[in-house]
């Protein structure tokens, strides 16, 4: 890290999102219900300007703001990806929410959760990390139960109990770390031991909840199925971006020592259990939920070899971005069609060829078929694992990828089957899906440009 600074403008993207959330809340209070749409515009504007600010920050040298928040490439990538994906999700949600009695609250909660996610990624102090964890989680609990129906309530309760429990566990880990080393900063003073095993495990518990990895994954299928589709898209995508970057930081700077094999075992368990459970899901949201668990397993590959392979950081940064855009695309199709069961996708290919093609691209993208972004991401992740001495992990990931083809194909086949076409898909959500599919391909084709940003070259 270069210089220390206390310039609030270093946090401009975060401040813009916070401003957007506060302004949205205030405006929402005074505007009549049928005109609440203006809040979506405010939030969208905040996100776009946050992206612009993050883009500008990328051209500046790395700084450490307030000795607790790193402004460097991983943080900037997170800012861009989180704000971009949140923007897409605001678009997805806005169609369904029109005229809803709590329309403006929805946007504000989404923005606050996104803000927490960015804090997770940038934190370089465990207390800031915990603050980010809470800010990323609490609005998400509310969003999960936003519909106030039975499913949503169950989803929110499960999500909340799991999140609070593991959050408290994590806080205990932070306390332990503080007790051992006398600091909560990621870079302890020389001579002070790095986090001890128990403290690492306790802190890890919270992170694993956020990324939806085994054994803290139980909330994922229920929350994904129970909450509304845009919220499901949000909680399976956005928190992952920040949490994985935060985990990478923790892994390189805090978890010194024997944690690599532990993370490798968690990665294997996560990808395998996610895939096995997804096999015979007939509900596409549950299918996507288990798919997101298995993807978390692949995403752990570069984390396992963090600091040991020059490819680990570019692989993870590229993977979170590619995964996020592809996953949002798949969920956007669910929002557009409003259909949850596999059989209700019969004949979509004839009814809306473009939408079906977008779904095809996103699902094949999740498999890792070239030339989509996830393909390049997987390539980098496998190469990083092999390079870091975990070739066996890459082999297991390959077998898991093959297994995953099976359930993605179960969703692809109905698209081109003759059948009763589903109702007219929602136009705005369809555009979001098509845009995501396009971005997913562009990310793969232009991967060289994006990877050039990352300093580490070939091993």
């Amino acid at each position, binding site marked *: 890290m270069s210089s220390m600074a206390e310039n609030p403008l270093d946090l401009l993207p975060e401040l813009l999102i916070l401003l957007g959330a506060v302004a949205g809340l205030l405006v929402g209070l005074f505007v009549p219900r049928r005109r609440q749409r203006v809040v979506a515009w405010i939030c969208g504007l905040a996100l776009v300007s946050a992206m612009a600010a993050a883009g500008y920050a990328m051209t500046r040298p790395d700084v450490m703001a307030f000795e607790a928040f790193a402004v460097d490439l991983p943080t900037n990538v997170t800012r861009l990806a989180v704000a971009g994906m949140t923007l897409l999700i605001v678009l997805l949600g806005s169609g369904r929410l029109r005229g809803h009695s709590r329309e403006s609250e929805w946007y504000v909660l989404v923005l606050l959760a996104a803000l927490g996610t960015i804090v997770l990624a940038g934190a370089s102090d465990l207390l800031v990390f915990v603050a980010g964890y809470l800010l990323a989680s609490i609005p998400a609990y509310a969003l999960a139960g936003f519909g106030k129906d039975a499913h949503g309530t169950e989803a929110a309760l499960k999500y909340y109990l799991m999140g609070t429990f593991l959050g408290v566990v994590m806080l205990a880990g932070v306390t332990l770390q503080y007790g051992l080393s006398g600091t909560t900063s990621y870079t302890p003073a020389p001579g002070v031991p790095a986090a001890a095993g128990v403290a690492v495990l306790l802190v890890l518990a919270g992170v694993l909840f956020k990324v939806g990895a085994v054994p803290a994954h139980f909330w994922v299928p229920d929350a994904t199925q129970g909450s509304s589709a845009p919220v499901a898209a949000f909680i399976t995508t956005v928190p992952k971006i920040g949490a994985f970057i935060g985990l990478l930081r923790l892994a390189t700077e805090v978890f010194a020592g024997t944690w690599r094999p532990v993370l490798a075992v968690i990665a294997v368990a996560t990808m395998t259990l996610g895939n096995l459970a997804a096999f015979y899901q007939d509900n596409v949201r549950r299918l996507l939920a288990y798919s997101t668990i298995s993807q978390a397993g692949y995403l752990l590959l570069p984390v396992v070899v963090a600091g040991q392979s020059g*490819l680990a950081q*570019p692989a993870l940064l590229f993977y979170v971005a590619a995964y996020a855009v592809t996953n949002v695309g798949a969920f956007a199709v669910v929002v557009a069609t409003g259909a949850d069961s596999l059989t209700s996708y019969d004949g979509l290919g004839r009814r809306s*060829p473009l939408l079906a093609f977008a779904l095809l691209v996103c699902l*094949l993208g999740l498999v890792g*078929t*070239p*030339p989509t972004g996830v*393909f*390049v991401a997987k*390539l*980098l992740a*496998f*190469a990083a694992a*092999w*390079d870091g001495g975990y070739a066996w992990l*890459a*082999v297991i990931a*390959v*077998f898991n*990828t*093959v297994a995953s*083809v*099976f359930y993605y*194909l179960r969703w692809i*086949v109905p698209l*081109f089957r003759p059948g009763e076409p589903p109702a007219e898909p929602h136009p705005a959500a369809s555009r979001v899906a098509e845009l995501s599919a396009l971005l997913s391909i562009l990310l793969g*084709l232009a*991967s*060289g440009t994006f*990877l*050039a940003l*990352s300093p*580490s*070259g*070939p*091993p």
Partner: protein
Amino acid sequence: MLSVVIFLPLAAAALLVLPRLGRRAVLGIWIGAAAVDLALVLVMWLGYGSGIAHETRLRWIPSIGAGYHVGVDGLSLPLIAMTAVLFLLCAVYSVRETRRPRAYAALFLFLQTVCTGLFAALDLLLFFVFFDLSIVGMYFLIVGWGHGEARRSALQFFLYTFLGSLVLLLGFIGLFLAGGTFDMVELIQNPPAASALVLLAIGLGLAIKTPTVPVHTWLPPAHTDAPAAGSAILAGVLLKMGTYGLVRIAMPMMPQAWRAYAWVIIIVGVVSVLYGALAALAQENIKRLIAYTSVNHMGYIVLALGAAGLSSGASRAKDLAVTGAVTQMVSHGLLTGALFLLTGVLWDRARSYDAGRFGGIAANAPVFTALATVAAFGSLGLPGLSGFIAEFQIFIGVIGTGAIVAGALSILGILITAALFLRLLHRAFLGEPGELTGRMLEARPSEIAAVAPLLLLSLAIGIAPRWLLDLIEPASALVVSWVSR
């Protein structure tokens, strides 16, 4: 120009997707694009001198040394030409396809881009991209237009070959980590010190695609349930991706490992030759029979390439073996393509591939019978057709390098193949009419126009092979010199 050849079909496919076109317009675009593509390939062939020609090099992912790098030489040009011919004739053959013709044509055009791109690729990652996309394209072809248990066969095809492709990717990553780049030309110039595990990964990935025994089991169901033109492409072009990868990637980039394990490769080849022939002999289903002869024919190629890695033996014999192997790739593409298109005629008329239910077709359909007979004789290696030229060189080469027993055993494979084709001709085409023979009408003009050029090309190679061999031989000698490093 090469990039135009690669992406012209894809552009035509995009044209098909956008506006609402009638069936005739679709066919016009399809056949037109394939014909122009073939013409461009011929121009490239005529203008070809030596070395790598028509090279294009663009940056793609510079930070890991991967780029868009394509070019042609004596190994890839014959295969690209064969691909262009086969795709054009499949388009001609499919003029009567009425089920969703737009999507059908678009898929074929997509596959043509993928196949041409693979043979032209000079970058491992680009090669893999095309390798993987061929699986996706063929899957949709089988699932959408196949018959019988098409969905099951297609799924099996996808999972099996996708596993192969990912294992191949692991091997490529191994080469990259050892060599620091994905660029094939650089990797061939400075072969990285890759371990035997890398060769195993790459070899296994390519063997599944080829396919060789014992990883061939995806092939018969996929072939049987695919539409006729799809089977022709699958057997004629897609299988070559595996053997082409062996010549292009495995041999020059891992010469030491290839030499060390040459006997393993030879044995895999011989087993594929014999097992494929014997399994074909036992088939009642004509399409399955032809599918198994593919295992046999690809076995000859693997055998020849293995023999080229033996440390004993003159380099002249090794040159012959590799030249024979590449010639066999072209020849098998033409002849098996013809055979599968002909089985499509059977299915079109009688909805059956059961050899026992036909008989005496010759009386009903003399032209069809004549075409089938020529294709069968070509496939069993009769002199005067391309199969003979290829197999003759392979045998001389293999025996010349000292693998005498392996060579002798594979010649036995020819004998079995001859027996099974003669038995097939005897049962289905000659003798008393069977229960389905009445439905066997004569071949239609479009079907003749699709099959006859393939057989004429095979005849041209069989009678006057120099124009093809002059192209292949220098490239083969280069491969042999690389492998002997």
